[in-house]
């Protein structure tokens, strides 16, 4: 093993030879690098962390040794984090160091590549939603929803502090929203669902002039395609509230355009394209109407001209942002998920419009067909909700749901327990080849 690989005395990523270090110290006029630290003795740290250095190979081995403690399960899991096949070309191109190791485009003249890629990403979201302005990322679907709630406070002509969200909502998403709602003192309340859909009549009843925003999802967290979104849009119109719609780029390739149902903001996880399963690592999609442009959180890439009159791209409207506007900024976001947006755009382009529509249709038919097959299993009824499903559905189990989940895990499959006798099953093209064996396993445990 080479000295550099073990590196007992230094960082393997600092290129200095001892002679160079000595020359540099000499140029500065000190004998020892420690003389450059202006740390008072009282707060100086003279202990050690107790973290051993490792060679690269050893480090990889240690990480893999830990990770191998994860069970090897075939996951029929979704609820906001989806596994679609990511082509190799997306990995290869996005890993190019010019992309991966660059940063926020403060010097656009040497960042045209990334800026154009983000401009293309924004444009794709504009097409998918029919709304005029997409930012180039929030952290994830939940934080994008939180930002939408704060947006409602900046754009609304009348004051209101109620944020209405569906009764069926991922706990984590609501918990994040509650934190974003805490500063501006908004109150987050649920409206009821009727058979997996927004109960629009109940929603209309609870809505009043104090409603700042109504949030709805299609598909819902239970995989149900919403059928009355235009009615939700009417409710928000009646009360001058924002209509925030949650979805994702695959679903939006097929479902009715958010602009056509009156949505004012579209949020969701755009990493359903570009990432695959990554323990919830995502990409917050944020798209809204042009009239709210100056209140949008996050980075925006715009087209302009360079000194030669050629088209060029740059971050724009930065006076909305924290580094300029400080406490009056539209958000505190700085570092975002730009590289994920790059991958999402690449993946969308790789699929093309027909590929996207086909993939979305497969999400509908696979969920439908798998639910039908599971419905034939003794001790299980699927789907619980009427209506159309996208990727996933909820099933009723005669056995306790927890027991079904555990027994399936023992057979190598992961599903989610929703309730005492409800499980949720998600399938995509990635799990397609496993469906038959999965149904057999369910039959073994469900009776």
């Amino acid at each position: 093993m080479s000295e550099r690989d073990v590196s007992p005395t230094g960082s393997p990523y600092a290129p200095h030879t001892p002679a160079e270090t000595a020359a540099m110290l000499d140029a500065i006029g000190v004998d020892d690098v420690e003389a450059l630290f202006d740390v008072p003795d009282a707060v100086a740290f003279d202990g050690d962390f107790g973290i051993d250095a490792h060679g690269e190979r050893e480090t990889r081995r240690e990480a893999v040794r830990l990770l191998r403690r994860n069970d090897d399960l075939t996951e029929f899991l979704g609820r906001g984090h989806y596994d679609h096949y990511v082509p190799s070309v997306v990995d290869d191109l996005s890993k190019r160091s010019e992309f991966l190791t660059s940063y926020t485009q403060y010097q656009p003249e040497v960042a045209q590549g990334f800026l154009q890629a983000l401009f293309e990403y924004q444009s794709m979201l504009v097409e998918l939603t029919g709304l005029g302005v997409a930012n180039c990322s929030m952290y994830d679907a939940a934080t994008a929803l939180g930002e939408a709630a704060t947006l409602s406070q900046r754009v609304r002509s009348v004051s209101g502090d109620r944020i209405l969200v569906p009764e069926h909502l991922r706990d984590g998403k609501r918990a994040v929203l509650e934190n974003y709602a805490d500063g501006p003192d908004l109150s987050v309340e649920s409206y009821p669902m009727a058979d997996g859909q927004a109960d629009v009549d109940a929603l209309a009843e609870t809505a009043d002039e104090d409603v700042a925003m109504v949030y709805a999802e299609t598909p819902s967290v239970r995989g149900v395609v919403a059928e009355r979104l235009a009615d939700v849009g009417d409710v928000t119109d009646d009360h001058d509230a924002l209509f925030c719609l949650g979805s994702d780029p695959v679903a939006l390739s097929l479902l009715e355009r958010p602009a056509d149902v009156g949505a004012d903001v579209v949020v969701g996880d755009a990493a359903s394209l570009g990432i695959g399963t990554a323990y919830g690592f995502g990409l917050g999609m944020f798209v809204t109407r042009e009239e709210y442009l100056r209140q949008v959180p996050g980075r925006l890439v715009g087209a302009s001209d360079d000194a030669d009159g050629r088209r060029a791209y740059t971050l724009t409207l930065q006076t909305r942002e924290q580094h300029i506007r400080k406490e009056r900024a539209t958000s505190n976001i700085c570092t975002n998920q730009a590289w994920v947006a790059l991958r999402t755009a690449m993946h969308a382009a790789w699929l093309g419009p027909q590929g996207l529509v086909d993939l979305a249709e497969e999400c509908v038919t696979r969920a439908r067909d798998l639910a039908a097959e599971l419905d034939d299993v003794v001790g299980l009824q699927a789907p619980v909700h009427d209506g159309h499903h996208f990727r996933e559905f909820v099933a009723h189990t005669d056995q306790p749901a927890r027991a079904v989940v555990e027994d399936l895990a023992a057979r190598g499959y992961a599903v989610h327990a929703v309730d005492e006798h409800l499980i949720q099953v998600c399938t995509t093209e990635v799990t397609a080849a496993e469906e038959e064996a999965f149904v057999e396993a369910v039959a073994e445990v469900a009776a």
Partner: protein
Amino acid sequence: MKYDQARWTDDGDERYEPLLSEKANREVEVEDSPLPDDLTRDSLELPDPAEPELARHYTRLSQMNYGVENGPFPLGSCTMKYNPSFTEDVSRRAEAAVHPDRPDSTVQGTLALCHRLQDYLGRIGGMDAVTLQPPAGAAGEFTGIQIAKAYHQHNDDERSEVVIPDSAHGTNFATAAMAGYDVVELPSGDDGRVDPEALEAAVGEETAALMLTNPNTLGLFERDIERIADVVHDAGGLLYYDGANLNALLGRARPGDMGFDVMHYNVHKTFATPHGGGGPGAGPVGVTDELAQFLPDPHVQSSKGGYEYYTPDHSIGKVHGFYGNWPVLLKTFAYVTRLGDAGLADASAKAVLNANYLAEQIPYEVPFGPFHHEFVASASPQDAADAAKRMLDHGVHPPTTKWPEIVDEALMTEPTEAESKRSLDQLAAAFSAVHDEDDETLASAPERTAAGRIDQVEAARNPRLSWQALDSET
């Protein structure tokens, strides 16, 4: 050596690389879908390049982009250090690709690794407990300030203000406002540091927290940190550490030992995870024992024979829909494990050495010191932004410009430990060359980059944020 970016143009065309939509847009009808027509869109119009075209498009775009592997990237406050290749491979292991809804018992590897990383970060920062959930530095700030708020509320002690030095990162101000606090801006003392007397005047029973970066954005260590901590604590406030500049102090000083109660780590700065053209990063938050009960939900702890998630007693709830930026955390784990104590301490030593050496070699004045991993030079009487544009022509990425405002025409410069003496000499040569150039040359720069100087005013006055907006113009 010059860094010339490829210029790809269509002859007679006013574009460098055509948009995907200009090359290969296609509209498809949505018909005969498995959904009823009234639930589907009518059509979808998006680019449809074949894979070879796609590969060439993004390869060309990458050639018009400057990253750490292209050359020096001394962007102050951003710690653009080299991102070790192998950490990418670690983050992409198939064993790591697990779904967040799995039962704890089936993701023991992930939990074990998170637990180890929590422990490592705690030791490095001198904090008792660490959450990995915040997906970026600013999200870490929000987490930390929400924790401070929960702490005060828990003590029936509602407070309304957060105190922040005027030299602080813009995120600090925005975070405090987002959490519902009024911001009290603290003017810097003549030496560029916090003036303890001004601080005493600013804090009181409404002070929820002081947010502080140490060393500060001028690279200066807050020598009075003990007194600062006492002043804030005596008023009943908490001390928040912005971890943006932790790369200056690894193994030399720890926020926990300085009296900080809450801190965030910027793993994409200090621990070399790639910046990804703007993100993703991660912003783990460390706290003292007393504040651990307020950490985000859920938190990893060891259990009988393994690890489990639990909800801290008075948790602030969640700041990310799932568990944060997991692949980034894997890279962080890999970097810290690779370097260990000696490597981390050496990273800071070389980062501080490099900043001091570079400052010594350049003709611009550096008004404040002694600085650590970064320094702020003054370009005055030149315009700092123009000087930066001209540095692009000399083949290097320029420093952060015109900030912090305490230095006239600021060039905020952070070379990181990744630069060799040779590359620092090249960087210094670029500073020197620009220093000797006239205003006209600077104002017309850059001329050797993929794009010439971009009209920012036009971009903002006539916002065109999509290819649809460009199309509607013609």
